[in-house]
């Protein structure tokens, strides 16, 4: 007799039979009957009619039978709440049973019966079980609190179960601790501000102790909980890291990844020069490599995580390139992930090895993989300049194979290589042209046409080649049509004499015979340009294009930070924040990495009001492959998610820009006989460059107007249905162009004019100055740095012959003229002097950086003092970076050079802050709002040409601002931060 017979009963009247069996006197028979009932339940049959009969079997000493009955109860209690009450008595009785197994079973099952009526009966037994002598019962009761909380949260709070649960964190049994932590974490998620899991050094210590003793699964709970803690300082951070590192060698990969998460997060707080930091980096590599020896499914999950880690801290795995080499029998999804990581790790040191591998991959069987491998070769060329030549020759070899898709893919990437290294590899064009006929994919055709157009003057038969494409113009995809149009116009501008007919043909095809608005409009623009002012047309269309940047498809920094906080979870596999896929009701708290060493204060500010706001707000719409450009601009267009009315200055500004542009376009569209709005172009000579600078990936699609349409794209983007990146245009153009004035004007409304200047302080006390007291400050007025001093004579004699000199200093400050004290200074007299300063003096790095040593001489003596100037006076007026340059620079500066600071207690809205900062030449370039948090992207230029990029995070209702600074000279960060603080607080 085996259990499988239970599955075979399908006859009618079976319920009736079962009923009889359930009511039998014989225990064996009863048990068999209950088993049959459960078997039917599993396969989806409705056996709820047997509820009373099964409940009747509940009172038994046979544990096996009892378990079966409980199993049934859990399944059907919800549909039969009235009947479920019948079972309550037995539950309560079982909770007192001498056998701990029965007590635990009863409390576990009661929690699973999700019937509101039962809960009140549950409280007393639960209270007893939470204090039970047996740990097995206690750990079950701990979980039961979470179950009960889900059904009736108020009841749990009223009954004081939460406090009991908190006490269990100090339980002697690690299993109980783990379950208490798990339950508290879950309850805390639905009360983001409750501070339920009060993580303080004492509890952390308890958790770390339990970590060593509990089961592997308990360790995961505890590590995940630790990851939410923010250590007070780097020393605490280090000591936690030290106690977590042994987990890295655990056999359970989930434990390993949870430990990696904790370490990645706490590492942020360790100073980079600490020996321990280096040790930790070394310790992280082996466990990550080990994860790759698992089954392909786990490997895939591991690789998705490693992809994140490599973007955040490439140094961890920089010597482990080989483990990411693709194995022949890896499944394709593993291969593609590995390839991505290989490119991210590629550097001059290992590029030869990587290229050799990629070349092998390009001859494999799987088409998708081969394509990606060919593309990867192109990415290598763009990333590692020294390898470019070798990459090109590898690509040429591959073209020789004549395998259709390899050739096409190679041409697409060679186009990108041309865009990165113009005028360097045109010798290969001949080979490319040979393959013209075999190209059948739009992207490859478009790339080839672009190349022909771009280098038309060096290709003898460029006109013939382009003409051949023109024959089937209407059958081509839009991408190819647009590219062809542009290429022929380029050709015409380069060789006007022989191609007039061709250009007329393509313009008429594009404007008259096409229904596609993009194509038509682009055609018209060219037409007018050419007919109005061919010189201007040449300037626009043949403008020098900026180079494309190397690292592409990187995850946007803020998202990356959040994902690092979710290592090992689904978020890290999807590369999406949890808010994007977890139901909105709970758990939608954005996590941030803690600030770097030195910030001291707690960083994850337990914001009271704002967190609630954040979880109420709809989940953020963050594109999966975070193209920051797209983000910034798309979000700019939507009204900010803050509740209050938007500050008038900004909104007026945005609307103004839109209107003006819109109006311009309307007139363009409305009356075709009018001359095209050339002024827009002439006013914005830089704008083509701006547009080109978009950090579009090498697989940049030529449909994005920016590519070669040049200056016209600002207009083009406003037409028809713009592709996402082109939507950038209306905003990026005004930033630099003729609309700049408008921008500044708007920014000026209601903003304090002039830079912030600190109040005067005493630099030289009279005691030290033989009666001369000097107090002073620095200011930047109308672009001139001034040292403003008050000289007071507190001596008994007259002072004359004043002179001043500076020691060499970090930014080359020097007096631009003599100290103007014309009249002698009588006793008890004060005089105000303003000394203009230049920044062309001799330079020496000072400590602190903004320290200035000054010597003042008078008829009595020479006095020395030192003072510190606010670095903000060095912020120059043209410190507003172009958006695209900003993005590219932000990505380009390694994360190591990022510094994060807190500005506490600053009660400004983000717009007010932005205005204030602009007064001190800190310019806001873009703003986006995510879940009530405003992020301002700002740039500043120092007088010596150093750029500082900043991300200012302002959460509505939270007086603490966070500033992330990125700069190629990281040492200025501290000073810049001080200026931020000073400007914002005054």
């Amino acid at each position, binding site marked *: 007799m*085996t*259990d*499988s017979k*239970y599955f075979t009963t399908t006859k009618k009247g079976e319920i009736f039979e079962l009923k009889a069996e359930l009511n039998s006197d014989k225990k064996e028979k009863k048990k068999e009957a209950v088993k049959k009932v459960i*078997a039917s339940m*599993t396969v*989806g049959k409705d056996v709820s009619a047997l509820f009373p009969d099964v409940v009747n079997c509940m009172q038994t000493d046979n544990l*096996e039978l009892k*378990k079966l009955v409980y*199993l049934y109860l859990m399944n059907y209690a*919800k549909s039969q709440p009235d009947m479920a009450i019948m079972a309550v008595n037995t539950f309560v009785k079982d909770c007192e049973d001498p056998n701990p*197994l029965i007590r635990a079973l009863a409390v576990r099952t009661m*929690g699973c019966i*999700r019937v509101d009526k039962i809960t009140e009966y549950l409280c007393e037994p639960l209270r007893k079980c939470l204090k039970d002598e047996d740990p097995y019962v206690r750990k079950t009761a701990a*979980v039961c609190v979470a*179950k009960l909380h889900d059904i009736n949260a108020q009841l749990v709070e009223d009954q004081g179960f939460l406090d009991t649960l908190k006490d269990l964190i100090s339980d002697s049994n690690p*299993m109980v601790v783990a*379950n208490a932590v798990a339950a508290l974490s*879950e309850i805390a998620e639905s009360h983001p501000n409750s501070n339920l899991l009060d993580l303080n050094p004492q509890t952390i210590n308890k958790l770390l102790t339990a970590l060593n003793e509990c089961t*592997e*699964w308990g360790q*995961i*709970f505890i590590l*995940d909980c630790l990851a939410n803690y923010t250590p007070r300082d780097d020393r605490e951070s280090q000591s936690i890291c030290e106690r977590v590192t042994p987990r890295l*060698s655990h*056999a359970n990969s*989930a434990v390993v*990844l*949870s430990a990696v998460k904790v370490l990645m997060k706490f590492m942020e707080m360790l100073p980079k020069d600490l020996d321990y930091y280096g040790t930790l980096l070394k310790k992280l590599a*082996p466990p990550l*490599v*080990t994860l790759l*020896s698992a089954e392909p*499914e786990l490997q895939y*999950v*591991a690789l998705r995580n490693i992809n994140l880690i490599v973007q955040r801290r490439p140094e961890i795995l920089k010597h482990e390139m*080989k*483990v990411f080499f693709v194995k*022949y*029998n890896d499944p*394709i*999804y593993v291969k593609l992930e590995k390839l991505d990581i290989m490119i991210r790790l590629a550097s001059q040191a290992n590029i030869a090895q990587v290229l*050799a591998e990629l070349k*092998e991959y390009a*001859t*494999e*069987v799987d088409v*998708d993989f081969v394509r990606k491998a060919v593309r990867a070769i192109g990415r290598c060329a763009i990333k590692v300049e020294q390898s470019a030549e070798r990459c090109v020759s590898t690509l040429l070899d591959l073209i*020789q*194979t*004549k395998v259709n898709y390899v050739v096409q893919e190679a041409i697409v990437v060679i186009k990108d290589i041309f865009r990165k290294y113009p005028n360097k590899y045109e010798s290969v064009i001949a080979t490319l042209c040979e393959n013209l006929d075999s190209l059948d994919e739009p992207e490859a055709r478009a790339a080839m046409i672009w190349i022909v157009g771009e280098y038309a003057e060096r290709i003898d038969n460029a006109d013939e080649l382009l003409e051949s494409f023109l024959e089937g113009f209407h059958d081509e995809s839009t991408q190819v049509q647009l590219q062809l149009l542009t290429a022929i116009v380029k050709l015409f501008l380069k060789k006007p004499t022989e191609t007039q007919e061709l250009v007329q043909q393509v313009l008429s095809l594009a404007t008259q015979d096409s229904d596609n608005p993009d194509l038509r409009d682009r055609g018209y623009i060219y037409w007018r340009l050419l007919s109005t002012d061919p010189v201007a047309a040449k300037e626009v269309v043949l403008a020098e294009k900026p180079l494309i940047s190397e690292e592409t498809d990187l995850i946007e920094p803020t998202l990356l930070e959040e994902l690092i906080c979710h290592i*090992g*979870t*689904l*978020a890290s*596999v999807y590369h999406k924040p*949890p808010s994007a*896929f*977890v139901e909105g009701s709970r*758990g939608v708290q954005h996590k941030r990495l803690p600030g770097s060493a030195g910030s001291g204060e707690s960083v994850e500010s337990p914001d009271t009001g704002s967190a609630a706001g954040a979880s109420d707000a709809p989940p953020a719409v963050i594109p999966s492959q975070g193209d920051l450009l797209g983000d910034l601009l798309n979000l700019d267009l939507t009204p900010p998610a803050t509740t209050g009315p938007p500050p008038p200055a900004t909104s007026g500004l945005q609307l103004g820009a839109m209107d003006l542009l819109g109006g311009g376009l309307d007139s363009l569209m409305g009356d075709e006989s009018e001359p095209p709005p050339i002024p827009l172009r002439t006013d914005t000579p830089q704008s083509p460059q701006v547009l080109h600078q978009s950090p579009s990936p090498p697989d940049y699609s030529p449909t994005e107007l920016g590519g070669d349409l040049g200056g016209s794209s600002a207009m083009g983007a406003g037409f028809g249905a713009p592709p996402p990146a082109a939507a950038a245009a209306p905003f990026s153009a005004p930033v630099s162009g003729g609309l700049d004035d408008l921008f500044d004007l708007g920014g000026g409304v209601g903003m304090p004019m002039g830079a912030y200047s600190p109040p005067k302080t005493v630099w030289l006390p009279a005691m030290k100055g033989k009666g001369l007291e000097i107090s002073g400050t620095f200011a930047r007025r109308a672009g001139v740095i001034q040292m403003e001093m008050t000289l007071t004579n507190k001596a008994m004699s007259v002072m004359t012959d004043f002179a001043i000199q500076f020691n060499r200093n970090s930014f080359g400050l020097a007096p631009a003229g003599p100290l103007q004290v014309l009249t002698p200074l009588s006793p008890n007299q004060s005089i105000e002097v303003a000394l203009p300063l230049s920044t062309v003096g001799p330079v020496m790095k000072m400590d602190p950086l903004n320290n200035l040593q000054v010597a003042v001489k008078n008829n009595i003596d020479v006095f020395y003092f030192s003072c510190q100037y606010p670095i903000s006076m060095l912020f120059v007026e043209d410190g507003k970076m172009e958006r695209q340059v900003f993005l590219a620079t932000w990505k380009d500066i390694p994360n190591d050079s990022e510094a994060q600071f807190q500005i506490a207690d600053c009660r400004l809205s983000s717009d007010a802050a932005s205005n204030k900062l602009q007064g001190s030449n800190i310019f806001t370039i873009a703003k986006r709002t995510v879940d009530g948090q405003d992020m301002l992207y700002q740039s500043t230029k120092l007088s010596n040409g150093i750029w500082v990029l900043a991300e200012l995070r302002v959460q509505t209702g939270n007086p603490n601002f966070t500033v992330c600074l990125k700069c190629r000279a990281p040492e200025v960060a501290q000073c810049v931060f001080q200026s931020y603080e000073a400007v914002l607080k005054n």
Partner: protein
Amino acid sequence: MMRISQLFILSSKGDHLIYKDYRGEAGSDVVNVFYEKVTALTGDQPPVVMSHRDLHFVHVRQGGLYWVATTTEDSSPFAIIEFLNRLSALVRDYCGSLSEKAVQMNFALIYELLDEVLDYGYIQTTSSDVLKNFIQTEAVSSRPFSLFDLSNVGLFGAETQQSKVAPSSAATRPIQSSRDQGGKSEIFVDVIERMSVVIGSNGVLLKADVEGEIRVKCYMPSCSEVRMGLNEELSVGRSQLRGYGAAVRLHECSFHQAVQLDDFHSHRILRLCPSQGEQTVMQYQLSDDLPSAPPFRLFPTIERDSAGRLLMYMKLRCDLPPKSAAVSVSASIPVPRGSVSLSQELSSPDQNAELILQNRAVVWRIPRFSGGTQLSALFKVEVPGLSSASLLEVGPVGLSFELPKLTATGLQVRFLRLSPVQPGPAQRWVRYVTHSDSYIIRV
């Protein structure tokens, strides 16, 4: 946080075998949704996580069954996959084998297990030692030993020569039966290694990694401690110091929680308190290093003959010690697109070769290949329109093989002591085997 919402086991045909809802977050209709999704997957989609509305499915396949967990939270897929693998191992340990039938027959037992291993979706324990205190139901063994079952005992689930010569039916019996039936006391130790090698076209070893593990399957209720001695000259870590050549080197190793390492550092002895059933005691790896020459070398000559056919002359040498041999050797040689047919000359009748058009490869199979010998083969492939560029498409050659009674690292179990001394005959079995994980020779 880590929370499992539902757990279910499906047969390969999609029948519901086990269904348990822990948190009441979704209905049982998702079981069918899962089955539709999983059967619709194509080969290039990662099967790891699939989502349906707010629900995420994580599954593994073990014993021909789908083991599925759902979650609505941002749970760790690692934890869930590990957990599902442990769960299936537990079920195998408890039921004796893993099959649709075994699960069906023991559903009450499995529900009981599910109640203990998870509570409200929180993983509680997967240790059979802890669980034995709670589990009441007796397992029902499907049938006595049969050859069919043995294929399920495979190492890593792979069907191997070794598993077919498993010493007795013991390996497929439920752990509980030894408790009262006084079955034979037995312990099986498997040292299993997987080798990944890439050899460049110039014969240079580009990459050589070995991953290995020691698995113990124990049926000894009265045994409280096993002492397992490994090679005395075993060095762990990446230090550059290389004493004398005889030492066995490992770069990384990790151990099961139940392993005591007190004597490991001094005497290379692992002490463990084995749970009944199967567990992985130690996992290790060696990267970019092999203690001896790679087992196979290939000397290919590839050319186009006058008739426009592709000629591939392959000399394959086995560099194993002469007493050892590789079994089930199979070489897969990718050939150019458009290949039509194959004719071959092989050196012995037990070998065979065929052109598999679907994979665009010639597969050459050698059932047994002794160490220190060399085999050669000539393949003529008909490829219409063969160009010199298409010759580039030949290769790389992938080998798959199995090396019985051999570990690539040289790791060995010196002794296996059980305490207290077992009453009656206690059988101790130690097996070694090395598999090719990926053995690529570029041409």
